[in-house]
C-alpha cells in the first residue's frame, strides 16, 4: 500500500508539472492521430489484397491494433520515461539520489516520471479498439469483457517487467542509447497477432519478449477465441516474471558503484 501511495504522489506531481505545458497536448494528440492513421493505412493495404490474415478478419485485426496503441500509450506515458531516466542516472552516477531515500528502490525508479500527454494514445487506442469491436460479427459477453480488462492489466505488468529487465542491463552495459529504439522496434511486432509469425519468432515473442502475451491474449479475449488455459498461464507467467524482474533488479543494483559522490 505504501508503494501505491508513493506512486500516486509522484503521479500527481508529474501530472501537475506537465499540465503547465498545454500546447504539448496538441502535439501529442496530433502524433497519436498520425500513428492511428498509419495503422489504418496498413490495415487497408493488407485487406485490399486478402480477405483474412491467418484467420483474423479486418475488424479483429483492428482490435489488435487498438490494444497495441492503447498499451503503447501506457508505456510512453508511465513506463518508458522512468526507464530512460534510470538509464541516464546510472550513467551519470545520479542514481544515488533515489537509492538514499527510505523507500523501495524498485518502486522509486519505476514511478518518478510521468508524461501525461502521451496518455492521449490510450484514448485513441481505446477508440480504435471500440470501432473494431463494434464491427465484429460476434457479440461480446460480459465474461469476455471482464477477462479482457484483467488480461490488459496483466499485459501492462508484463511490458513493465520487460522494460525494467532491459533497463537493468545498464549496470553492465553503461552505454544504452539504443534502448528506446530497441523496445520500439520490437514492440511493433505486437501490431499483428503472434500466430502469424514463424514458430521460432512466436516463442521468443511470447516468452523472451512478452509482447505476444501482452497484446494478443487480450485481443483473443475480445474476439472470443480464448479458453481458460491461456489466461491462467498468462497470469502464472506474469507472477513468475515479476518475481524474476525484482530479483534481477537487486542483482544488477549490486553492481552500481555511483560516480557522483
Amino acid at each position, binding site marked *: 500500500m505504501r508503494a501505491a501511495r508513493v506512486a500516486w504522489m509522484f503521479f500527481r506531481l508529474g501530472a501537475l508539472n506537465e499540465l503547465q505545458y498545454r500546447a504539448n497536448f496538441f*502535439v501529442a494528440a496530433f502524433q497519436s492521430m498520425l500513428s492511428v492513421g498509419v495503422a489504418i493505412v496498413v490495415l487497408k493495404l493488407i485487406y485490399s489484397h486478402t480477405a483474412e490474415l491467418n484467420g483474423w478478419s479486418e475488424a479483429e485485426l483492428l482490435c489488435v491494433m487498438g490494444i497495441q496503441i492503447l498499451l503503447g500509450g501506457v508505456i510512453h506515458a508511465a513506463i518508458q520515461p522512468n526507464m530512460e531516466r534510470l538509464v541516464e542516472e546510472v550513467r551519470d552516477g545520479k542514481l544515488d539520489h533515489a537509492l538514499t531515500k527510505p523507500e523501495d528502490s524498485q518502486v522509486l525508479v519505476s514511478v518518478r516520471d510521468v508524461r501525461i500527454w502521451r496518455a492521449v494514445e490510450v484514448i485513441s487506442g481505446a477508440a480504435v479498439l471500440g470501432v473494431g469491436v463494434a464491427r465484429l460479427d460476434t457479440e461480446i459477453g460480459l465474461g469476455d469483457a471482464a477477462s479482457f480488462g484483467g488480461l490488459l492489466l496483466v499485459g501492462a505488468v508484463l511490458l513493465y517487467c520487460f522494460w525494467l529487465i532491459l533497463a537493468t542491463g545498464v549496470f553492465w552495459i553503461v552505454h544504452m542509447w*539504443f534502448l528506446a*529504439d*530497441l523496445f520500439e*522496434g*520490437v514492440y511493433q511486432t505486437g501490431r499483428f497477432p503472434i500466430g502469424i509469425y514463424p514458430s521460432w519468432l512466436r516463442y521468443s515473442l511470447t516468452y523472451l519478449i512478452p509482447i505476444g502475451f501482452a497484446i494478443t491474449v487480450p485481443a483473443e479475449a475480445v474476439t472470443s477465441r480464448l479458453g481458460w488455459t491461456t489466461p491462467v498461464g498468462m497470469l502464472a507467467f506474469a507472477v513468475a516474471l515479476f518475481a524474476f524482474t525484482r530479483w534481477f533488479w537487486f542483482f544488477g543494483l549490486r553492481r552500481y558503484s555511483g560516480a557522483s559522490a
Partner: protein
Amino acid sequence: MSTVEPLARQNPLRAMADFYLTTIRTQLQTQFQYRAATYMYLIGMVAEPVIYLVVWTTIAEQNGGSVQGISTGQFAAYYIVWTLVRNMNIVFTPYGWEWRIRDGELSAALLRPLHPIHYDIAQFAGGKVIWVALYLPIAAGLTLVFDPVFTATALEVVVFLIAIWGAYLIRTMLLWLLGMVTFWTTRGSAIFETYIMAELLLSGRLVPLELMPGWAQTLSDYLPFQWAFYFPIQTLVGDLSAGELVGGLGMQALWTAVGAFLVWVCFRASVKKYTAVGN
C-alpha cells in the same frame, strides 16, 4: 623566415579529402568499441522489416504463392535488402538538433572552418562501415530463415553499391533540413512525425511501391523518398534495365544536389536565429 601556408589554402580538395578520411578513421575506431550496443540497435531495426515480411508472406501464401506477381521469395529478397539500405540511410536524427542547440554543441561546430554538415556526413559514413560489417551475420541469418530469391547481375551489384551511398546522402540532406526546424520552434516533433509517416508510405519502406494504390505511386514520383529506399532496393532485387539503373543514379544525384542547395540556403537563414544556450 617563411610561414607555411595551411593545407586548406594550398590545396582545398586535398584538405577536404584529408578531413574526411581522418574523421571516418576516427569514427571507425569509436564505433567498433560499442559492438554490443550496435547489435541491440540493429535488432530493434530488423524487427520492422521482419514484421512486414511475415505479413506479406502470409498473404502471398494465402493467395497461392504471390501478391500482384510478387512471390514469397521475392518479398524475402526485398525486405532483406531493405535492411541493408536502411542501415545505410539512418542518419543524424532531427530530434538530435534539440540537444545540439540546448547543450550548445552547435556553438563549437560553428567556430570550425567547415560547414557543420561535413562533420555529420563523414562521421556517419565511418559508422556505416562498422554497422554494415556487424549487420552481415544478421543478413545471413535472415537469408537462411526466409529463403529469398536473388538474381543480380554484376552491373546491378555495382549500381547497388553506389546507390546505397546515394540514399545515404539524400537522407542526410532531408533530415538536416528537417532538423533545422528546431531553430524556429521547440515543437518540431509534430513536423518530424508527419515527415516520417509520408516517407514510410511513399518510399517503399512499408511495402514495395507497386503494392501501393496508383495515385500514391504517382505522388511518390515527384518526391525524393523513393530514391533513398525503393530504388536502391530495386537495383538488386528488381529487374531494372541498364538505362533505368543509370537514370536512377542520376535522380539520386539530382535530389542530393537539390537537398544540398536547400541545406545551404536554409542553414544560413536558420543560424541567424541561433542564440547559443549552454557552454
